[in-house]
């Protein structure tokens, strides 16, 4: 799944519906979706940041920051998956497996 791409010298980010939007229209919901995909999806892609292709200077600033952040998160994905799996594990299992009527 591609999350960030560069086309026609502009940066784009992926929306919930699968379409892409110009990166200067990013809002917090959009960013959180990118974060969720970064952690949850098995395969993700980003176009590498490259200021010779990405000409729009405003886009450069945003793209670079988001790109670095997502890449950093992706590197910590295993740690994240371990940590979320451990979250309240004992209590979660205990209440899940309570007898049902």
């Amino acid at each position, binding site marked *: 799944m591609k999350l960030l791409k560069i086309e026609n010298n502009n940066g784009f980010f992926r929306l919930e519906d699968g379409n892409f939007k110009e990166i*200067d229209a*990013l*809002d*917090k919901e*959009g*960013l*959180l979706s990118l*974060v*969720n995909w970064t*952690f949850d999806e098995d395969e993700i892609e980003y176009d590498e940041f490259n200021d010779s292709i990405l000409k729009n*200077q*405003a*886009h*450069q*600033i*945003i793209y670079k*920051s*988001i790109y*670095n*952040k997502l890449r*950093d*998160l992706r590197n*910590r994905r295993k*740690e*994240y998956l*371990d*940590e*979320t799996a*451990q*979250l*309240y594990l*004992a*209590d*979660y299992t*205990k*209440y*899940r497996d*309570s*007898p*049902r*009527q």
Partner: protein
Amino acid sequence: MKKIDLHIHTIPTISDSHFIFSIDTFKNYVREAKLDAVAITNHDIFDITQYKIIQSELPIVVFPGIEINVDKGHLLLITNPERVDSFDSRTSKVSQRITKIGDNISYEELVEIFGNLDEYLIIPHYEKSPAITGNTLEKLTRFVTVGEVDSPKKFIRSIKDTEKLTPVLFSDSRMKENLINFPTRQTFVDCGNLSIEALKSSLGDKAKVALSADEGNKLFQLFEDGQKLSTGLNVLLGARSSGKTHTLNKINESEENVKYIKQFALVQQSEEQEFKGTLEKKRSVFTENYLSGLKRVIDQIINIDIEANEQLVDNYVTTLLKAAEDFNRSDVFSKVKLFDEIEFTIGNLQSLKSLIESIRQVIENKEYHNIVTKHLEINSLIALIMELISLLRANHLEIEKKKVVNSLIRDIKSGLRIRTSAVQVEDVDLYRISLDYKAVKKFEKIVEFLKIDSTILKETIQGFTIEAQKRKFAGAGEIKSVSGLKTAFSAVYQLYDQPYQYLRELLKNDYIPRSDLYKFFVKIDYKILNRDGFEVSGGERSEFRLLQEINDSQNYDILLIDEPESSFDNIFLRSDVNQILKDISKSMPVVIVTHNSTVGGSVGADYVLYTKKEIIGGKITYRIYSGYPTDKKLHSIDGSEINNYEVIMNSLEAGISAYEKRRISYEATKN
């Protein structure tokens, strides 16, 4: 049999409340109780002058002794009268060392002061507080064959248990001025002469120690007039106003640690709500335990503020966009690389640490060492743990370095910001925010599981079943009653189906202690079911309560129960109550007052007591007759006797003629 009391106080010390010693009291006690030997055992002190006066005044053997604080317990150390002078000089060393509350001496000091402990009779507090236990008792084993207990129940228990020391029951009383009620706690020993050596030899044999002179351990002395009681099951009979309840009250006052189930005590509170309330209180430990997991989760979730997190993300995006928009306003300061630099994320070493800990356990475990080595090379495990520890060290160092760099970045960024008009991007920790989000989701899932109707406890007690069920709160009213507050909960309840929002709303109420928040998510109901699986009726509630009370009596030294028949039917009494009382009486004295033939006639009493109001010379006297159920006559202490058959007929069957009539009428119905 010799009757002895080797634990008597005659001097008030820091360990006593104040009293004034009276030799007359002591003389009266020895006479009334018909004692053959006593020991003077004051706390950490021995007064030879007083001892000699007492010895000359009492017509029986008086042993010199002392009660010493050894470690955390007490022990009696007693010697022969002829050794009193050397005993005096040794005990003075104890007095020098123990001068204030909390002082004590060790086993080693005891040996240092008294030398060969074999020469003394040593009696540690055993089933009596403060007891000598653990290491100290172990070190003393060689010199100790006997231990002091504080009730007939514990005496019988020690006698029956081959692992336990021979028990002795002593008064531990103060011979003070105006002592009215003399103690009844003494021990009978079958021994020839009364010397320390003879006593030690007899006390080493449990068969030579008893609670009564003629009846061994079947009976023990109850009242100072010599009235005895069975160490098993006693039935107390008598007409109305003949002194039965008075006798029970007297036992209650004279003994310590008594369980007394009074007449009608169980039927007074039969309101269903109240009953359930009591039940819930008694089971609150279970509720707390069951919800402890939720409590732990909530303790963490209350620190997560999703709204604030969203604000942080928003700030990041907004400032990032603004910075992009204003890129042409960059100046020398904002062009510095570090101006928009983001901090290093600091990793978590927790999972690596737990992994190392787990491997350490595998390596060090002794119990399953053989199985471990069957499958794994310990050397490989050691190599693995070494590598992981090196990695942990390296990562730890890395983290420390990153922390230093981060703090530098923060310093530099804030320095640059005040010199430029360009917008600086506000950083955000997306990792933590995402984790918070997952934690909230998991919390909501946990609450969702909890709200599913289910039975979480099923416990059977004597045919009744206690059930605990969990379910959703049915409305704001139920939540309010859990809170114990007067504030309205209807607004909060609107959010009940969104656990995280609901929690945030509860947090706004300052009157709810945070430690109680876990109580607001799921309702736990308790109910008692009868044998047929239906919820109990009013009468059955009383039955349940009676069985609970009787069961609870295991923690006491004697059980008194006044007319259990007052609100129960005969079938329940015969099938349940009698059996339980009989079982309990095997380990402690039980006294039942009854008029009911099902209880009195079928319970299988070990001893019968009959109270009678008699008018002698115009004066009302309450007399107690007693004896075994098979005895033809029951006897009173002062030598009167009464026909046992008549007693039983009058007390349990409304008289012989009524019994005969009833019997004939039953026969007629049967035919």
